[in-house]
């Protein structure tokens, strides 16, 4: 079983962490809101974005085959992986074939899902994160706490201290331009010397065999342009049907994620270096990862999880995420998307508890640019966690079932379906209420937040009405 509860309680005690997240999330929410001020445009663009992803999912196997065929025609080699272990092996094989010792990485959440860096280091290959936020947390041996801004949990004093300790000849400074300059200096040499580059994929276009990447820093372009070998990894849900599907999705993605009308770079890769060209990688490979996605796909409701374009707006607006931060989830994808994705990827035993880390307030649903019904999916996953059944589209269905809870609900259901039992229980509760302890069982936990226990009324509503002369129905 997981440990979200204890981790969340620990995080809540960390005032610095809470203020770092609060400030960041407030900024991101207001920047996003400013760019979707036109409600009519937002409504129509969002409907379009949803339809594009739903259309791609409705033809998913055909589009993946088309993507593969067009990539091959363009000279991009395509590989398929059922599991993260297979994907890691494919990448290791490609690197070893070229004798590669260093890999520069652009931001890729799928590679986090694969724990690729640790795997490669185990095989003597240096995997270096080059996105500034990812670089910061890699220096500190941490996991990302946000899918778009991985180092959002740190303030500049913490980063200044880290750089002065870990970067050779670096002086302590809190000047953001100077800190950025230090990272630039270290990483430019790495880009120049690296044997291979790795990137994620934001959208893969079946029609043309084109891989689209959005970014602001230019590290993604450097990773996909300078080294002789480029490996792109994507979850199988990243495919879209046509090139003209990409601009509306990019618009939804960049505005939702960081409140930018567009990112500095939109990088569209269709082939390796062509004859006569002077730069670009000699080899480009695309690794398509399943890792549980086809299992989710088998269920029409859970399939909607695969509409996600990874903008992070759901976490930016989540009252739980904002207070506990990303690390409490202990998962590559935190926040609302993580709460529905992780149980489906890793199973109910390891991650089913994340589906409960929500008040179902619906804030994430309101801002999702592709209308994923996150709250409905949370409830669905809670149900899958409580009921074992043979053909469930999740791993370890029923893993969260508790005998005591099941018994309590069974008793409740008996009582609530028998008027005599209901009446008797009501009378007893009213009579013995003053004798009941202030808190016991799960109530004790609930009361710790400073709440007072609700009291049972001395007389039930039925009784009060009868006393007033209203006849029972």
């Amino acid at each position, binding site marked *: 079983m997981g440990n979200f509860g204890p981790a969340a309680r620990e995080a809540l005690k960390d005032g610095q962490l809470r203020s770092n997240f609060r400030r960041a999330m407030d*900024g*991101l929410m207001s920047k996003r809101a400013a760019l979707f001020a036109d409600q009519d445009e937002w409504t*129509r663009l969002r409907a*379009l974005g949803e*339809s*594009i992803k*739903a*259309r791609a999912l409705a033809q998913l196997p055909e589009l*993946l085959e088309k993507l593969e065929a067009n990539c091959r025609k363009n000279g991009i080699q395509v590989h*398929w992986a059922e599991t993260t272990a297979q994907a890691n092996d494919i990448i290791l094989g490609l690197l070893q074939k070229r004798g590669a010792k260093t890999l520069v990485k652009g931001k890729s959440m799928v590679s986090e899902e694969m724990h690729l860096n640790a795997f490669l280091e185990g095989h003597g290959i240096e995997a270096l994160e*080059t996105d*500034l*936020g990812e670089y*910061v947390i890699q220096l500190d041996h941490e996991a990302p706490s946000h899918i778009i801004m*991985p180092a959002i949990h*740190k303030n*500049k004093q913490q*980063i200044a201290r880290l750089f002065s300790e870990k970067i050779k000849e670096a002086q302590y400074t809190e000047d*953001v*331009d100077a*800190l*950025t300059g230090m990272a630039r200096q270290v990483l*430019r*040499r790495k*880009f*120049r010397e690296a044997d291979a580059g790795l990137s994620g994929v934001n959208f893969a276009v079946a029609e*043309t065999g*084109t891989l689209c990447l959005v970014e602001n*820093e*230019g*590290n993604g*372009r450097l990773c*996909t*342009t*300078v080294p002789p070998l480029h490996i792109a990894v994507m979850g*199988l849900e990243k495919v879209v049907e*046509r090139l*003209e599907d990409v*601009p509306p999705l990019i*618009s939804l993605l960049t505005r939702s994620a960081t409140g930018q*009308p*567009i*990112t*500095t*770079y939109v990088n*569209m*890769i*269709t082939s390796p270096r062509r004859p*006569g*060209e*002077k*730069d*670009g990688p000699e080899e480009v490979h695309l690794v*398509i990862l*399943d890792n549980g996605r*086809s*299992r989710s*796909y*088998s269920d*029409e409701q859970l399939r909607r999880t695969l509409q996600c374009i990874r903008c992070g707006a759901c976490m930016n607006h989540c009252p739980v995420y904002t207070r506990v931060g990303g690390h409490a989830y202990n998962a590559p994808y935190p926040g609302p998307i993580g709460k529905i994705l992780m149980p489906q990827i890793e199973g109910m035993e390891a991650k089913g508890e994340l589906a409960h880390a929500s008040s179902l307030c619906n804030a994430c649903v309101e801002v999702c640019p592709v209308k994923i019904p996150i709250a409905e999916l949370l409830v669905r996953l809670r149900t899958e966690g409580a009921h074992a059944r043979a053909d469930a589209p999740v791993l370890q269905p029923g893993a969260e079932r508790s005998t005591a809870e099941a018994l309590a609900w069974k008793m409740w259901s008996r009582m609530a379906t028998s008027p005599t039992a209901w009446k008797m229980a009501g009378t007893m509760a009213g009579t013995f209420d003053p004798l009941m302890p202030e808190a016991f069982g799960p109530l004790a936990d609930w009361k710790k937040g400073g709440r007072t226990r609700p009291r049972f009324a001395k007389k039930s509503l039925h009784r009060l009405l009868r006393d007033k002369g209203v006849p029972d129905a």
Partner: protein
Amino acid sequence: MPDARDSILSRLRAAPRGPAPGSDFSVMEDRFFPPEERLARLRKMMEAVSAEFFETTKADWPRFLHGLLVQQGIGSILYGPGSEAGQRLAEEWPEGGARAVAYDRPMDSFKEEMFNGVEAGLTSTLGGIAETGSLILWPSADEPRALSLVPPVHVALLDPDKLHNTFWQAMRALGWSQTQMPANALLVSGPSKTTDIEQTLAYGVHGPKRLIVLITR
């Protein structure tokens, strides 16, 4: 791994599926900026992220650029000698001042100089996008990818008559899905930037620190 491919695809094919929904692109079609306002809009959007603009003419831009580099203390510029812009630059570049460096061999043979030796790179553009303030670049054998990526300053030529309303409309007007896409197509909307340290904006983290746009009338 052929078996992984086949088993993934067969699982996907076995899932229940309804008909693919249609998409209403009218919100993309409706976006419109009158032609006379497009340049101002593009400038405003790009200047908001620190891109710099200069006005020159189609006849005079190489001399203008030379003067600008000298004035700004930029000592060298990398260019693609096979491109139309590169040929103009080579022919009309004045003696002295800033040095013009031809990108005439594979990057692998002069990575060191490219990363540490040249201060600027010149590219043409296919046009611009008013809505988001973006330049469209199609690098090629004659105008390689690194010109807009590796040197600390990127200088881009923009023909003000080639401005589109939106990315979507530009893609359709230029018929991208019907033509062979280049190895790498790009939109560039400013200099390299990051907000990864405390959401504070900093320019030039990995790519160019400055983006200079020359409007060629």
